[in-house]
């Protein structure tokens, strides 16, 4: 009798344990991910409410990328880079990495040319957005859709 009750308890605990084991992996699979909304929030935090127009900025990323861990990216802005008319900053954002910011670059008339390049990581196929802040306060942007076959951030050492 005592044997039976104790075995029932074990069975129940085993079942509860199993249910927990099957439920937890689904929770673990969900990764932190920025969404177009969090990207908008990040943009709002950096540049505020000002309207952003398309143009002047050229965001250069290969449209099809094999390895998301290193992607060559360059941004250039059509600007004379004089004391009166120059690019103050360039911000780059993404939609689907765990974090929406990529890089913010601050420059001035001494740059001579409003351009920079670096290497970035992308966790998924997504849109990448570059926004340039000009000395007159206007904002210009360019968007590129990138397809990534091997995503970054997924590998577990």
């Amino acid at each position: 009798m005592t044997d039976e009750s104790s075995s029932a308890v074990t069975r129940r605990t085993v079942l509860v344990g199993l249910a927990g084991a099957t439920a937890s992996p689904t929770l673990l699979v969900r990764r932190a991910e920025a969404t177009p909304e969090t990207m908008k929030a990040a943009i709002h935090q950096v540049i505020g409410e000002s309207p952003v127009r398309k143009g002047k900025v050229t965001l250069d990323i290969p449209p099809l990328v094999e390895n998301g861990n290193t992607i060559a990216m360059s941004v250039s802005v059509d600007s004379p880079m004089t004391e009166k008319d120059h690019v103050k900053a360039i911000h780059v954002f993404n939609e689907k990495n765990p974090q929406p910011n990529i890089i913010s670059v601050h420059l001035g008339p001494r740059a001579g040319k409003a351009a920079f390049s670096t290497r970035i990581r992308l966790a998924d196929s997504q849109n990448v957005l570059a926004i340039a802040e000009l000395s007159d306060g206007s904002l210009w942007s360019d968007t590129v859709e990138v397809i990534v076959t091997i995503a970054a951030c997924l590998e577990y050492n």
Partner: protein
Amino acid sequence: MARTLINVPPKAKRGQVIEIKTLISHVMETGYRRNESGLPIPRDIINLFVCTYNGTEIFRADLHQAIAANPFITFFTVATESGTLEFRWTDDNGQVETAAAKITVE
């Protein structure tokens, strides 16, 4: 902290726009990965890069986790006078790495 590689033209004409290339070895750990035991690997990235030309800041970049390991950054500047370009990287642990390059302007 890390090894750096800088490429600045040694000579330039006054007013010429020169390209500067910089590379530093750094893991740029995102903080989203886990180790063999399933424990999260703490975030460790270079979050700030600054370049000064004879003491005046000419370029500054705020980096985030989306920058690939061993950050490579290229940018431009106008060769105004002979002197030194100084480069400074700061990471999450507050460690600072510096490098410098001389330029002669004719």
